């Protein structure tokens, strides 16, 4: 499961940083759901504030993938939130059909390009 994390200075809320985790595989499905959740746990250990999962490369998720994303949210350290970004249409639909779009804050695009700029 290809997941990479990057800390980005958060312009909107200057008191905290934002951990952006980019999913690099086109599918989060039953074949990788457990690995996804385990890798998310590794990447978010010690995180504070916001974690944004960038799904811009993900073309397909199934219910197992959705369950793994929910599981990743539940295993975050106390006080840390998981937000989602850049959902492709088929992925967006899974969240809407299951009403999980009401559970997560979903951003149209992932935060990026703010690291080197003065906020």
């Amino acid at each position, binding site marked *: 499961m290809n997941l990479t994390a990057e800390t980005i200075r958060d312009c909107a809320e200057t008191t905290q940083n934002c951990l952006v985790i980019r999913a690099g595989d086109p*599918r989060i*499905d*039953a*074949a990788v759901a457990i690995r996804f959740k385990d890798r998310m746990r590794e990447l978010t250990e010690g995180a504070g504030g916001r974690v944004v999962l960038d799904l811009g490369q993900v073309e*397909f998720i*199934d*219910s*197992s993938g*959705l*369950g*793994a994303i*929910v*599981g990743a*949210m*539940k295993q975050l350290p106390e006080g840390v939130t998981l937000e989602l970004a850049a959902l492709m*249409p*088929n992925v967006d*639909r*899974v969240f809407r*059909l*299951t*009403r*999980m779009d*009401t*559970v997560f804050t979903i951003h149209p695009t992932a935060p990026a390009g703010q690291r080197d700029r003065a906020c």
Partner: protein
Amino acid sequence: MPTLDPGPGGQAVRGEAPALVLRAEAMAVRDALARVIDQLRGQGLGVEELGSVELVLAEALNNIVEHAYGDMGGEIQLWWTLGPRGLQVRIADHGAAMPDGKAPLTFGQCAVDHAAIVPEGGFGWFLITGLAHNIVYRRESGINILTFRVIVGDAALPPGRGDSLL
């Protein structure tokens, strides 16, 4: 190719060979989905329609892998026909029967409003019932047979035509 015995009467297969036979494993499901979607793309279905078909097939097949067979492993047979009423699908397996002999077509696991009680599972049948029509499950001579229809292609074009209740 090894096949499942359709049992007396042969209603599981109606005399047709399955379009696809796959091992009940997550990676085999991936491969099967890719093959079906590839064929349907060639028959003119749009991206969104292909997305619906892939999702509902994934849920049905993964249910068999995880629940009907579990650690046992086994074989899944898949038939599909794209016609004027949409995509008709039939899936057969030799795994355990559905609990109470019924598909879980009515339940409310996903009607949640608070993050604290959000379930991590139970979304699969919710998606199937949201995307498929005419869902019928039956157990026949030790075989699970699930049939359903996805309204795509010509069936999705004119308003009011081809749509029906579950």
